[in-house]
Structure formats: structure tokens, C-alpha cells
């Protein structure tokens, strides 16, 4: 068949268009971020940003929030997904729907709900202190990450015969906590890691929660720099993209690792 009329030709055209559509703005941003010093390419913008104490403080804060969100998410999602699969399989669609709600309800609605529920004149005035607000932030981020974390863990559990594994462990004297910690958790670790990287990527650049709850996170810092500087925001955008890509890359890596194990298991 003629190459020009073949499907491959159009596939290459579509791919090239996609690459240009996504890559050109990034290449442009990256190129611009290198032009802080006049007449030469340099990493000056990166030096300034990385040396800024506010960058270090906000980035560290967001990393802490992301890690706490991952821990809370795992503690919430793994036992729930396990229990639903084991004892309440008919409730799976309902639970799945609930976990998808954060994709439908905007973050701003959730955060206003929190502010109304937990303001200083409420029964539980969490917004009254930095620590209380941080708890709200982690709770909110856990909700935002729920669709990704739940799906990742549920998919991981699907590859296991959890009913038989649970019964085998119970017949050997184990209780449900031992079974979760020693059997279920290690076997869905790859799925959890995949959910964790997604959670990390979401939390690290999140703006709405941090801005409205007035916490020193990386998202508002990026907005602040973007509004007041020329070259640094471009450098910051490249850094943020790199972090997200690193997370996605690691996720791909662990997913491949999981597939490898599955192939081996069913050989």
C-alpha cells in the first residue's frame, strides 16, 4: 500500500502534532527560563529560585503535606477497599462513586465547606490554629487524591484472590490486622506506590486549598512569583513539571514492575 495513503502516515502526523502541541510551550518556557542574563544562556533563574528561602520553606511544607496525605490516604483507602472487596462486594459501585466525587465537586466548594464547618465559631474550630488548619489541609488533600488512590489500590487488590488469602491466613490463626499488615499491604505495595506518586504530584502544586486556608504551600508561592517576576516563574514551571514527570515516570516504573510479577505469578 502507498505510504502516503497508509494508516501509518496519518498516525505519524497525529503523533507529530501532539508532540508539537505539548512540547513547544514547554521548550519555549525552558528556553525563556535560561535567558535571565542578557546575551547568554544561563541557569541564573534556577539559582535565584532554588536559593530563595521562601521556595525552600514552601516546597518543604508541600512535601510534608504530600507525605502526610499519602499516609492518611493509605490508612483510609487500603482497609476500606479490602473490606469492600471481602465483605461488601455489592457496595463496590457505591464506594467507587463516592471516591469519584472529588472529580465532580470543585476543590473550592470543598474548601468553603471546610471553612464553614470548622471556623473559629464552630464546635470544632480547626481554622483557629496553624496545626488545625494543617489537619484540614491533609484531610482536603486526601479527598482530592481519593479517586486516584482508591482506583490504584482497588486495581491492585483485583489481581489477588483476597478472599482465599484471608481465609488461609485466618485458618493459620491470624487476625484481620495481621492479615492487612503482613499479606494484603505487601501485595498491593506497587499499587499503593502508584497511587502515592499521583497524590504527591497533585498535592505539590495544589493552590486552592493552600491559598484559601492561608497556608505557606508551594502552589501559592508559584502564583506569587508568577505575578511579580519575569524569568523565575518560567524556571519554577519547569521545576514543577519535572517533579510531576518524575512522579509519573516512577509510577510507570513500579507499574511495569507489578506487571512483571504478575506474568511470573501466572506462568
Amino acid at each position, binding site marked *: 500500500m502507498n505510504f502516503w495513503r497508509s494508516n501509518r502516515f496519518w498516525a505519524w502526523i497525529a503523533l507529530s502534532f501532539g508532540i508539537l502541541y505539548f512540547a513547544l510551550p514547554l521548550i519555549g518556557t525552558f528556553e525563556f527560563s535560561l535567558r535571565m542574563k542578557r546575551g547568554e544562556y544561563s541557569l541564573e533563574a534556577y539559582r535565584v529560585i532554588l536559593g530563595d528561602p521562601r521556595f525552600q520553606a514552601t516546597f518543604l511544607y508541600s512535601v510534608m503535606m504530600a507525605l502526610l496525605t499519602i499516609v492518611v490516604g493509605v490508612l483510609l483507602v487500603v482497609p476500606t477497599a479490602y473490606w469492600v472487596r471481602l465483605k461488601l462486594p455489592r457496595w463496590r459501585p457505591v464506594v467507587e462513586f463516592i471516591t469519584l466525587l472529588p472529580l465532580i465537586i470543585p476543590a473550592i466548594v470543598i474548601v468553603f465547606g471546610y471553612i464553614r464547618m470548622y471556623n473559629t465559631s464552630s464546635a470544632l474550630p480547626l481554622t483557629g490554629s496553624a496545626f488545625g488548619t494543617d489537619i484540614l489541609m491533609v484531610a482536603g488533600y486526601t479527598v482530592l487524591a481519593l479517586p486516584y488512590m482508591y482506583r490504584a489500590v482497588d486495581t491492585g487488590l483485583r489481581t489477588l484472590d483476597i478472599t*482465599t488469602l484471608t481465609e*488461609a*491466613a*485466618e*485458618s*493459620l*490463626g*491470624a487476625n484481620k490486622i495481621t492479615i492487612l499488615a*503482613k499479606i494484603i499491604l505487601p501485595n498491593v505495595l506497587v499499587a499503593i506506590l502508584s497511587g502515592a506518586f499521583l497524590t504527591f504530584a497533585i498535592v505539590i502544586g495544589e493552590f486552592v486549598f493552600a491559598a484559601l486556608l492561608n497556608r505557606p504551600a508551594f502552589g501559592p508561592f508559584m502564583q506569587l512569583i508568577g505575578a511579580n517576576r519575569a524569568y523565575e516563574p518560567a524556571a519554577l514551571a519547569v521545576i514543577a513539571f519535572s517533579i510531576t514527570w518524575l512522579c509519573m515516570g516512577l509510577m510507570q516504573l513500579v507499574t511495569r514492575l507489578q506487571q512483571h510479577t504478575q506474568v511470573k505469578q501466572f506462568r
Partner: protein
Amino acid sequence: MAFLEISNLQKDYAGNRVVENFNLAVEQGEFISFLGPSGCGKTTVLRMVAGFETPSAGSIRIDGKDVVNLKPNQRNIGMVFQAYALFPNMTVAQNLAFGLKVAGKSKAEIESTVQEMLALIKLEELGQRYPFQLSGGQQQRVALARALAVKPKLLLLDEPLSALDAKIRVSLREEIRSIQRKLQITTIFVTHDQEEALSMSDRIVVMHKGKADQLGTPFEIYNQPKTRFVASFVGTINVLEGVVTNPQTGSFKLNGTELSLGRSLSKLKMGDSIALALRPEAASLGQVARKAGQLQGIVQDVNFLGSVIRVRVKVGESVLSLDGFNQPLVAPPKAGAQVIVSFSPEELLVLAD
């Protein structure tokens, strides 16, 4: 008192009774098989003994203790599943050690028990392998050893050989029986494979529609089936319909010929119809002097099975199967040939419904 006593056990699912009035007494060290088709309730009874299902009524006593209200992890029961259920994240040795660690045994005791179990299943060199690195047969041996490592009072085997290929199934069933005899552990084995049940068990419970149809040794179950279902499920049978002519002498009429079972039919009266089972190996082709029962028929087809030749003969409206040993110098009959089927009436089994 028996070691395991199951009394009036019953299980209902949404108004549907899947196990009804099930009673069983198992002595210590006995190997009992639950045999029956899919959906007969055999696995449900086993799961109630293990604690994974709660009985709707009845009691289960192990070593004199009622266990109905105990959780599965409090019953000290070892269980082997059809799907092996080895923990994929643990090596063979770690799988074997799991139950011992949960029980809080010392490191030295765990180490020695793991070695003992590996030796028992003859897999000493595979302790550091993961389940996915083992064959199906090896995985099931590890699952058996894992269940035995915690020294359970009772061993439950839920169709452990069903997922394996035929050759491994035969060798593993011999291995399981030999280990069970060696350890003298009371065992319940669930299977739908009559050959497994007949070859391994001390006694067999044949289950049908949630009830125990018959309990007996393999010899009794095969040779003296009490119901039409047991006779047809265990082995192959030919059912002959006769009419009782003298219940005291056990005489009956079959295809116009008067024959006698040689034993009384006390529960029947003259003129009652009677269902009689004839095993394929109990009938012969051609006239045999010592066999009084004779039926004329036409050969329908001949199946050569190696050591055995199965001939199907149309007699009146019914078709009888006959098994005979292959004799290299005697050619089997051809389809369409007129033949006489001979049998001893005394070998006929009277079937109750």
C-alpha cells in the same frame, strides 16, 4: 465421644436450604471424604467446620468443644484450598513460618518446624523460592505443609487436587494420604472425584442436595449403594426395572424371566416395581453357566479403553453398559451383533429413591 461431632447441621441462604440435617461423627486420625456433585453442600459443610460460614442450626464439636461461636483463627484447624492460597509476597519458608509466628513461637522452634515441614513434603532445597517459582503440585505441597506446621487438631482439604493435571493429581493424593497416615491427623477431604474419594478415604460421605445420602467405607459405598443417586454417582450403573413376585424369597420378574436375589425384600410387597442396579463389570457377554440372569440384546457400540473394553448393548428400551478386560486373542463384538448379557441376580443392587 467422637473427635469431631457434627449434629443436625443446617445452612440457609436467603430462604434456600443448602445443608439439611447433616450428622457426622469422625474418630481421631480418620480420613473422611465428602463426595458429591457441584452444589451438593459439601464445601458449605467444610466451611462451617472451618468457621468461614455460620450454621443456621446445629452444632460442631471438635475434641469435645463446641466451636460454632469461635472465629476461624481460634479453632486450630489447618485448611488447604483448591487455589493453593500461598502468600505471594513470602518465600516457601516464610509461608511455612507464618502460622508459627502468629502463634508467637520462638525463633528456634519456628526454624526447626519449617525444616521438618520442608522434609515432610520433600522440598528441602526450595525454602527460599517464591510461590510463583514453583509448579502447581509443589505449591499445593507447600500449602499442605503450611497447614500442618501449626499442628492443627483437624485438617480440612477443599478440593486440593482439582487444579492439577491428572498425573500429579494421582501422585499427590498418594502423598497426602501417606502424610496423613504418618501424622495420624483427623482429615476431611472435599472432592467431586469419586476415584480420589474411593482411593484415599477411610470413610466417604456421599452428599446430594444438602443431605448426606450415605456414609460408609469405599467398599460399602461402591458395592452397597443405598440410594439410586449414590449408585449412579459412584461408578457407572445400569438400572433394570423389575416386578416383585415373592418378597420373602427375593424373587422378581425381569423381561419375563423369574429371578431371585437370594435375599428377602422385606420392605416390598408382591407386585411392587423394583429398581435394580447392575455394575458394568458384574455383567458378561454370552451365556455363562453360573449366571442365571440372561437378557438378549443388540450391540450398539464398542469403546476400547485399553485394559478395559466397554460394550453398550440395547436391551428392550434400555441400554446396558458392560465392562470386560481386554483379551488380545479375542476380538470384541461388532456393533449390530445379537448378544446375550449374563449376570448373577445376587449381584444386583436394590435401589431406594
